[in-house]
């Protein structure tokens, strides 16, 4: 079996990151008092699973229960009914392990969160949004005929749609994957929701939202539809989805909703102050770069292309205000160092395909020999 190029302890913890948790545990047990305190503080700060297990062995009581729950890699879902009000979270109507009530939105949200949790756990060894077993909360039936879904920093929120333009927002698995991934991005890189960093934030949610769906369906990159929000539009709308990663700008063209205005390349970059600098518009560019990468590398997109993007998101060199090019350079470096020169070239070619030259910066980063690992 191929050695994992991205060891799990490669985390952003800034306190004592290069010391393995096993060693920290021994220090916490046998070191001097200051050493014990420092080791415990580090174990408490880093929430990665290995650290959680090590901490669990040292602590009793509630902390032990919490960390063991995290170590079990089990989802902890709670679905709330907002009762068509715009107040959160609403009334809890289904918690983990409970039987399905007669409410389509509640059960779709529950199942979608479960599928997304399973994707991150199985593929990237990630235990929920914060990699420490964070409970997955979602509210459905939010507002009256509410045409949106969002992540509010603590939970996911889904509207029922107006029935005229939009169906219910729980109907599409990639929507649920998209919203949960906003939580992952906030936990790892905290990309600001503005301009290019905001468009990257959106694109990462689209990419992993699509991968959650592909993983569930067992599709290869070539088999996948690469659509975001397929099934959200009612039959009255002339369109197949909200966005297309394969062909940005082609998802809909409707007399009421207008034409899909996502650019596929930097030539079409939209300079605007609306929507936080066009975060849902310019995300078409990194979306398409991810698609081109996945197609070039072939196979199941979550295995290599997705892994490169995931590790880039976790890379401490990814700044909160990153530009497309800075992100692109990191993906090329991650691909070359984690998988090989061929993969690095494929990723660079994909970015070139959307008008971003990432090869120069990635060579400089590679020469420095800094992988971003703590």
């Amino acid at each position: 079996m191929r050695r994992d190029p991205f060891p799990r302890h490669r985390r952003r913890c800034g306190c004592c990151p290069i010391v393995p948790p096993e060693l920290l545990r021994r220090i916490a047990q046998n070191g001097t008092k200051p050493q014990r305190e420092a080791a415990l503080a580090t174990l408490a700060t880093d929430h990665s699973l290995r650290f959680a297990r090590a901490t669990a062995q040292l602590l009793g009581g509630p902390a032990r229960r919490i960390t063991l729950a995290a170590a079990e890699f089990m989802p902890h879902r709670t679905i709330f009914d907002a009762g068509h009000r715009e107040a959160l979270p609403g009334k809890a109507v289904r918690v983990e392990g409970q039987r399905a009530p007669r409410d389509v939105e509640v059960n779709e949200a529950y199942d979608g969160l479960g599928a997304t949790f399973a994707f991150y756990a199985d593929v990237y060894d990630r235990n929920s949004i914060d990699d420490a077993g964070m409970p997955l909360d979602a509210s459905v039936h939010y507002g009256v005929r509410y045409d949106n879904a969002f992540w509010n920093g603590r939970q996911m929120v889904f509207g029922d749609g107006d029935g005229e333009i939009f169906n219910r927002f729980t109907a599409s698995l990639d929507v649920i994957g998209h919203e949960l991934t906003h939580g992952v991005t906030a936990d790892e890189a905290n990309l600001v929701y503005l301009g290019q960093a905001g468009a990257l934030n959106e694109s990462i949610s689209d990419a992993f939202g699509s991968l959650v769906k592909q993983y569930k369906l067992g599709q290869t990159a070539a088999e996948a539809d690469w659509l975001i929000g397929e099934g959200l539009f009612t039959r009255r709308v002339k369109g197949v989805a909200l966005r297309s990663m394969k062909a940005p700008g082609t998802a809909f063209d409707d007399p009421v909703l207008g034409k899909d205005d996502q650019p596929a390349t930097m030539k079409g970059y939209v300079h605007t102050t609306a929507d936080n600098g066009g975060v849902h518009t310019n995300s078409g560019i990194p979306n398409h770069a991810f698609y081109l990468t996945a197609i070039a590398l072939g196979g199941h997109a979550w295995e290599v292309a997705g892994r490169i993007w995931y590790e880039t998101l976790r890379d401490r060199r990814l700044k909160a205000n990153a530009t497309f090019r800075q992100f692109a350079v990191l993906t090329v470096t991650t691909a070359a160092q984690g998988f090989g020169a061929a993969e690095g070239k494929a990723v660079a070619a994909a970015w070139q395909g959307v008008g971003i030259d990432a090869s120069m910066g990635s060579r400089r980063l590679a020469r420095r020999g800094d992988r971003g690992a703590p």
Partner: protein
Amino acid sequence: MSLRIDFGIEGGFAALPGLAKPLRIDCADLSKEEAARIEALVRRADIFHLRLPAHVASIPDARTYTIGVDDGSQHRMLRVEEPIADDAMRELVAELRGHAARLRRAGT
């Protein structure tokens, strides 16, 4: 003169150019009850004197509503971001969303 409101929806997971384009809601075209309800909500929200909270940081996929209100003697343009804390403003936005959806369906 009756109230005229230009209403648009920016951003959101389902960010669409057709929703962002402001739509005119003219109370003169509405039933007496509908017009009275909107006028009452505009008064309650104190649109012409309201001080909006300072922008902090946007929530992923939350929407921003552009609301231009004209009563013939005063005009105010607002950008209201979700989540909307003020009850009256939240009710007004929900009401305007409903009217905008009906106008779009009618092909306005």
